């Protein structure tokens, strides 16, 4: 039987999570094949919530399917598409379905997605969703009304260790810790020296940090992320390493780099675990784990 994520965090084991995206449409066969490929190889699987503001099957239903298939789901919840009633209602529903781990996010802005004219909700932001999780656990809702049956969650949040400027990011990190975050999955890290500096600071807090590992699939992707994705910096040596890959071998190179980083993070005890984001390439996650010696 799958162990709960909270127990995994407590066990002191090196934690490995990965990410699965729900489909746009009702055909869940590919999502299910990703789940069955990964569910026993990682401790838990995140189910994204209309990731990048692109409309998809809900993360709640996706998590339910992970659960049904015997995996451990992490419910991603953003405040972009739902107000405080809908968010609390979904948290109750998740709890009833046995989903007990939630990652609280503000959400990408709606104009980055495929329904640019929609109304962005943002009634609650990441910190306030974290707090809502804790309030519900105390037996009342955000309106102060008693609950009949109380949901308990292991709550997590995200942090960007390479944000610039870093100070306000760290202040917010601390607020998330105070609000009850038990674990953090970070934005992708590539420069482990910078990440170590962040960890030297984060270690002071009683939370588990899972380093974000994004699979590089080409030198072009690395350059693109450097130019366009906030908080991600791929150092030059990694970009050239990707560029040096033989024709058709870039993906293999990316797997090698990701595996090497995970191995180093584990062996040197840099973080408590890793969160692997192989956006669109979920099927190679086992290869990354193998390259990492996991």
């Amino acid at each position, binding site marked *: 039987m799958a162990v709960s994520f909270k127990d995994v965090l407590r066990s002191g084991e090196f934690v490995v999570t990965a990410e699965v995206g729900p489909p746009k449409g009702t055909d869940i066969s590919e999502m299910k094949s990703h789940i069955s490929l990964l569910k026993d190889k990682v401790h838990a699987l995140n189910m994204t919530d209309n990731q990048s503001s692109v409309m998809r099957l809900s993360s709640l239903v996706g998590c339910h399917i992970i659960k049904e298939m015997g995996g451990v789901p992490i419910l991603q919840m953003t405040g972009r598409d739902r107000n405080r009633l809908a968010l609390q209602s979904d948290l109750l529903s998740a709890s009833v379905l046995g989903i007990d781990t939630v990652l609280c996010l503000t959400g990408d802005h709606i104009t980055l997605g495929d329904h640019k004219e929609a109304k962005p909700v943002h*009634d609650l932001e990441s910190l306030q969703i974290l707090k809502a999780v804790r309030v519900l656990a105390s037996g009342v809702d955000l309106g102060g009304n008693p609950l009949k049956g109380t949901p308990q969650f292991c709550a997590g949040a995200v942090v960007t260790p390479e944000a610039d400027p870093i100070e306000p990011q760290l202040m917010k990190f601390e607020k998330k810790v105070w609000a009850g975050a038990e674990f953090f999955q970070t934005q992708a890290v590539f420069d482990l020296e910078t990440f170590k500096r962040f960890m030297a600071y984060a270690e002071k807090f009683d939370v588990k940090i899972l380093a974000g590992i994004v699979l590089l699939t080409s030198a072009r992707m690395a350059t693109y992320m450097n130019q366009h994705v*906030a908080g991600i910096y791929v150092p030059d040596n990694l970009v050239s390493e990707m560029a040096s890959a033989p024709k058709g071998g870039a993906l293999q190179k990316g797997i090698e780099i990701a595996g090497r980083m995970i191995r180093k993070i584990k062996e040197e005890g840099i973080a408590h675990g890793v969160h692997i984001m192989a956006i669109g390439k979920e099927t190679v996650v086992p290869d990354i784990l193998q390259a990492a010696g996991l």
Partner: protein
Amino acid sequence: MIVAERKPFDEIKTALAGCRKVFILGCDTCVSVCMAGGKKEVGLLASQLRMSFKKDGKDIQIDEDTVERQCNREYMELVLSRLQDYDLVVSMACGAGVQLLADLSEPLQILPGVNTRFIGMTPQDGTWEERCRACGNCILGETGGICPVTVCAKGILNGPCGGTDHGKCEVDKDKDCAWTLIYHRLEKMGKLDNIRKDFPPRNHLVQCHPAKQVHEVYKGE
């Protein structure tokens, strides 16, 4: 002030198709300052319409005037009697002004001549920036005089999101990240601890639409 922009000429012209006598009523307050619906813009629109209809061989009478403030009853009463014979009045005021005109001149047909956009200020001539969403519970005193509700694309109250990038916002590389601005401002003020404060979810009840307020002195009248 309220910032608006003139509706596209063709949209206005099309809406006037069946009319014989049209009045264009400007407002000399906010929309005049943002060069959308003041005296000058009214004059410009009126002559453009006259020329365009003339070219089409249509005989439509266009008259114009501008009042001090269309959202104020006293000013509107000075002009109302002159509007009676017109088929339609194009109001160049903000949405509030248009509605007061419609209320006071019922059942006269009205048409908004501008699109009302936001409450803003003028950082430099010819540029207007939205700076307040009239949230009903101002926290500028905590945030160094920079409004997170408005300037942050997601209205975040508790510090930057993960999309902040070298001082810019994830929504638009040309837009400053509100929380980086707030951070630097508070640092200069020696008030960085304000960011550590816990800001609860906003109370939308104080903004419940349509909002209404009556001054103490006028209560019970």
